[in-house]
């Protein structure tokens, strides 16, 4: 039985490298999922090695779209939002399902597409040390697109692609060296991500309220001394009214008398402090000089240890 691996990850970059030894792909904003197919048995795992086989029935019919006796595919499961753009919030409605009997219903509400960009194993043979261009050729050979399966296209003109991504307000692009191997379990600079917008995972340390309910949540990140710094506040963002309300109810239960932040948020009226427990994914434009986020918007609640919401993790992960 194939043992799940930790996937290769790109390194953040601010510049697009030049040269014909790089290709560019769209960075699809979703959930990283690897598919392990061995004849009859199919398993799906995310990058933290949590099994997701039963969450995405659309992609477990491997023989319907992949011509191989056995295969490991790497890609991103995405779902489109109402603006027809990939929405992390939407895909989390599928990925976060706890009671699996909900899957068939949610499958109709939130259809997903598997954007496949790599193949690591085929017909009993590991391919990860082969150069990218060879793996992509094999990928094109074995995977045929369907309603829920799309191979990620590669582009020579990274600048043109980035321009298109900006125009469509998508997450960004990934540059990959065509001769590079797939380095398992490593964040490697043979892959570079260039982001159009940024995101990070922060923990909620308080909220503000107006008549009728919660108006914003206060966000924090931990420094190396495990002190929580206030970095900004955001409203409901892409959360639905129900989700925002439910979040408010949970937060109300974890109210504490003292601020958990080492620095004082400017606004102190109508604020309640909460035990930092709930990590959230935040999309933002940039950091200000004062260590706070410009234009933060709430994307989704995420499953993560609150103490892992650190400045360090943030600069590495996004």
């Amino acid at each position, binding site marked *: 039985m194939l043992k799940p691996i930790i996937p290769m990850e790109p390194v953040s970059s601010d*510049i697009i490298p030049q040269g014909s030894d790089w290709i560019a792909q769209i960075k699809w904003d979703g959930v990283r999922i690897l598919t392990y197919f061995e004849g009859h048995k199919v398993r799906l795992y995310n990058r933290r090695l949590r099994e997701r086989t039963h969450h995405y029935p659309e992609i477990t019919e491997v023989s319907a779209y992949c011509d191989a006796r056995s295969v490991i595919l790497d890609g991103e499961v995405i779902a489109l939002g109402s603006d027809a753009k990939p929405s992390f919030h939407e895909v989390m409605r599928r990925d976060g399902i706890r009671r699996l009997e909900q899957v068939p219903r949610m499958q109709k509400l939130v259809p997903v597409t598997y954007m496949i960009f790599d193949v690591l194993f085929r017909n009993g043979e590991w391919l990860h040390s082969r150069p990218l261009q060879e793996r992509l050729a094999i990928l094109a050979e074995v995977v045929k697109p369907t309603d829920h399966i*799309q191979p990620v296209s590669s582009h020579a003109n990274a600048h043109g692609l980035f321009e298109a991504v900006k125009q469509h307000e998508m997450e960004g692009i990934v540059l990959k060296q065509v001769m590079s191997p797939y380095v398992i379990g490593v964040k490697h600079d043979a892959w570079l991500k260039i982001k159009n917008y940024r995101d990070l995972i922060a923990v909620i340390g308080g909220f503000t309220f107006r008549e009728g309910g919660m108006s914003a949540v206060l966000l924090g990140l931990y420094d*190396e001394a495990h002190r929580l710094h206030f970095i900004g506040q955001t409203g409901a963002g892409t959360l639905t009214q129900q989700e925002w309300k439910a979040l408010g109810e949970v937060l109300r239960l974890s109210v504490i008398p003292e601020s958990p932040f080492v620095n004082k948020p400017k606004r102190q009226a109508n604020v309640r402090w909460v035990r930092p427990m709930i990590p959230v994914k935040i999309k933002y434009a940039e950091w200000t000089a004062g260590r706070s986020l410009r234009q933060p918007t709430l994307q989704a609640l995420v499953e993560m240890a609150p103490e892992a919401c650190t*400045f360090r993790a943030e*600069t590495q992960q996004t």
Partner: protein
Amino acid sequence: MHTVWKGSISFGLVNIPIRMFTATEHRDVRFRQLHSVCSTPIRYAKTCPTCDREVDASEIVRGFEYEKGNFVIVKDEDLERITPETRKAIEILDFVELSEIDPIYFEKSYYLSPQETGEKAYALLREAMRQSGKIGIARLTLRNRQSLAVIRIYGPAILMETIFYPDEVRSVAQVPALPADDVELAENELSMARQLIENMSTTFDPSQYTDLYRQELHELIEKKLEGQEVAAAPAAPKANVIDLMQALKESIAAAEKAGIDKPARLKTDPTGADQTGNKPSAAPAGTDQPAGRKKTTTKKLKRKKSGT
């Protein structure tokens, strides 16, 4: 089934420790009320019309309206003082014939099962009641209220039915328009009616009676779920990935036509902060890359960036 009460049956000098389970349940399809605009479940807010604001649970007290608009305030302490002593026992007072109790008295049924040490005494009481054919009249305190109950045998279990107190059963004399017993009836009509009853007589088989309306409601809901006629979801995305990919393709072509294939036009970094070191605690993303890779990027580009 979950235990709703723990206590004992006390019967003469014998105490049988038991657990109690609700024996019946309503299976009605429950609906929630939603706001038709956004499908959010309606919340009930408790408000005070005088103060014109929502009222917290801690601000609410109990009042008995002894006449319109006039109240006696009854506090928790007041109630505690008169709450019957919770003896945690179903006290059997008498044994009577089941037929002596009209079904109108029955309120709610509970199964009783013995706790660890009570099995033998439970079996003994059950068998004795079976042989005598009698049922017990008992008293117990349930939810701060003293109740009257009947203890009887149902299959392998001892069953308890709470019953109404006599003054809780409305007098039949209050029912209007009941014909007197000595109304004259034609003999042939009466014999026809008796004949009809005879023909419709059968033995009671509860399984043949089902709640058709409930069944149909369930089917209706199933169908709506299958047909995606589901509220609450913000309209399922009509667009698909293929459309998006097509749109992207067109944008790339347009960008190329506009001459975007040179880095001179590039501005990838939305955060000037990274470059000036304002991003907290860690190195800006671009600086930890090995020199080997950087040689693939043009100097011209770097100059352009630091210049802006």
